[in-house]
């Protein structure tokens, strides 16, 4: 199993798809939004099967950072902000659950609990965020890029505020 995109996400991006030479761009925009908002949601059987098996084009160069981002997001989910020495077994277990050297060329493990499924969930959660927060579906890449970057910034600020509030309690 590799990268799956929600059917509604594909539709939402349809007007700028022609300006993007990789379908993975859409997945990536969703994924980074999911990471920034720390949002995951499940895909359903109504969504299409994997559209690509490996990080395509320029994204192959970003593979390790995106894998790192997934581990980071998952560890935060499990442990909260800090990681201490006693968390070592949790970290090891998470890493070996998410990654595989022997399997896919993405190094993401398969299965319902594997890294590929987890990453797809972040991309799906990220699309939910985009859909909620952007006023209209993207019409032109030149405007979308700026609006998207702005939204990521806002999401990060909100996270920082939420974490600060939590720390103050």
């Amino acid at each position: 199993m590799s990268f799956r995109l929600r059917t509604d996400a594909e539709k939402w991006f349809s007007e700028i798809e022609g300006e993007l030479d990789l379908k993975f761009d859409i997945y990536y925009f969703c994924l980074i939004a999911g990471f920034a908002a720390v949002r995951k949601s499940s895909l359903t059987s109504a969504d299409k099967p994997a559209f690509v098996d490996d990080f395509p084009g320029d994204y192959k160069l970003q593979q390790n950072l995106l894998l790192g981002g997934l581990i980071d997001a998952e560890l935060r989910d499990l442990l909260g902000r800090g990681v201490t020495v006693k968390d070592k077994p949790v970290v090891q277990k998470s890493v070996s659950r998410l990654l595989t050297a022997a399997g896919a060329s993405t190094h993401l493990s398969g299965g319902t609990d594997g890294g590929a499924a987890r990453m797809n969930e972040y991309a799906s959660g990220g699309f939910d965020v985009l859909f909620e927060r952007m006023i209209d579906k993207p019409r032109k890449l030149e405007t979308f890029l700026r609006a998207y970057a702005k939204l990521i910034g806002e999401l990060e600020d909100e996270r920082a505020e939420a974490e600060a509030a939590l720390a103050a309690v």
Partner: protein
Amino acid sequence: MTQVRLLGWKAAGLRCPDHEISLARTDGRPHHVSLVQMPNGTGKTTTLELLRAAFSGPGAWVDPDAVTEFAPRGSVGGRGAFEVRLLVDDRRFTIEMGLDFENRRAEFRTTWTSSVPRFQRPPSLLRVLTPEFAPFFVFDGELAHALLDPRKTRAREALEVQFQLSSLNQFRKLMDRYWDDKTRNSTTKGDKGLTQRRNKLNELSQRRDRLTVEKAELTKRLAVQKAKRDKLEAEYKAHFDQDSQAQEERKRLDEELKRASGNLGTLLANALTDARKPQNLSPRFTAGLQALRDNLDKLKLPESAAKEFFDELAHDTHCVCGEEMTDDRRGAILARRDSYLGKEDMGVLNAIKGAIKDTAGDQPSSYREAFDKQLARLRDAVRERDLVQGELDALEKRRLEGGDAELSAMKARLEELNGALAKDAARLATIDADDDSGHGEDTESLKALAKKIKRAGDLVAEATETRDIRLKTTILKKLITGAVAEATNRIAKQLVDATNARLESILTRSPLRVADVRDSVVLDGQSRGSPGQTLALGYAFLLGLFDAGQVSLPFIVDSPTGALDKNVRREIAELLPSISQQLVAFTTSSEYEQFVPVLDRAARGDVQYLTMFRLNDATQPLLAGVEPDAVRLSANGVLITSKSFFEGFDSEAYGEKPTTRAA
């Protein structure tokens, strides 16, 4: 026809008494009939088995335990030797078989043209001196019955061996094996796989053909439409430029727009490239990566020890603590192992850490700040273009508002044309794309399709080759099955005729007729033979079989009349000499009555009488009355070559307890 005669044999150091038997008359030719009388326990069965083994060659000795069964009782180690002398078309052929009881090995030496340390047979005997065929000329009384027994298929077995039909059947098995070997690594074996692959290839090829046609149409239409658009645009501009002030203004703005759009395009492409680097979008993401890397360092991950290390520990005989390895300890080690990474997984984690350091190691906000500057330039470029476009639109509007209906109509048509052109151009771009743009098998890129068609073609070729091998082996196997059946019918017919002809000359008073010999020897519906005749029939069939194989063999039979009653014995005794050219029969004294004297007459006196027994306190006195030149003594046995001794010998009286070994 190759004539094979048995001249004699010699045994030493084996389970039977040491002995040497010559079946030759003074003229060097063997007797027509040789009778070897041996009490039970003297090694009658052993001797017969040794003869069969010597005729079978090394192929009969696959089980090393079988060798030790021929060792003298109570002995350990040592060697035994058995030698058979044959006459093959008047030339001597010797088979020496050495049994090494210590190493449980049988060794052969044969002498034909020269002496060689292996089982080298005269070419004419290659098919006869085999483990499969030897039982058909070294046999017991049961064989003849078995040949006639409709529940058994001994006749078929004999036929298959003698006429290589068993080899043909073996070819079929080898073909199955060949297919298995050839297709072991094949990804598909069934016809279904081939059909699926063909369908896939067809589907892809059809799509390619459809897209190729579409591309040609698009290209053509684009050229025509573009020309139309350019013409219309020129006309529009010409019309527009009828106002000379507007003309100059439009020219300036057109150039401005071209420049601004070009600038925007470059900036947008750069921005998209940079947006694909997550560190440019999200400082928190970058900070998170750096924290992850620090934490991994803090936790000393990946470990220097890998999962594999614990596997080794767990499978040691002793625990690292020095204590013996127990299931509990092993369980504990293996449980810990699961929280460690394998060697290769450690490599992945190290690569991630390296990438964070190399490409996202600076101040987290610095990447986004640089990207924001780029986005600002993009924003400015968009504004600039929009501004120029706005001026152009305003100019146009002014001209159109001037009430020039024709110009308005031209403008509308131009826009419509441009819209259609953009749609066609986008479609053409999809078809001309370099990769599948993530659409996988559903791609509409001709280049990506070409690659997929090549791959699909390879898969079809592989499946086709696999299928062809299967079809061809199937054809061959069917052909062989048919040939075996046909050959069996032809051979059977010949054998039936030959057997009937022979029976006619043997059973002159009431000849039997054979109807079929394919599975077992089947009598003609009209015929009903006595038990003796029936036995003769079995022998006649075997002789026919030997004849068809162009070889005349001796019959070496254990207890030829077996448990038959006296009348039948008489009948067989009369028949046997006329059936075979050389008969060597192992008998006990219980078979004497109604058999030996009759046989002697039937063989016109060319009968050799041999009596063999173990030499011990009980048998010693027997030697007293025998003429000395009829006695051959060995270390543990005696052979008496006297007819009168043979007649008077009561083997039951000197037999040892019956052995349990099967005949």
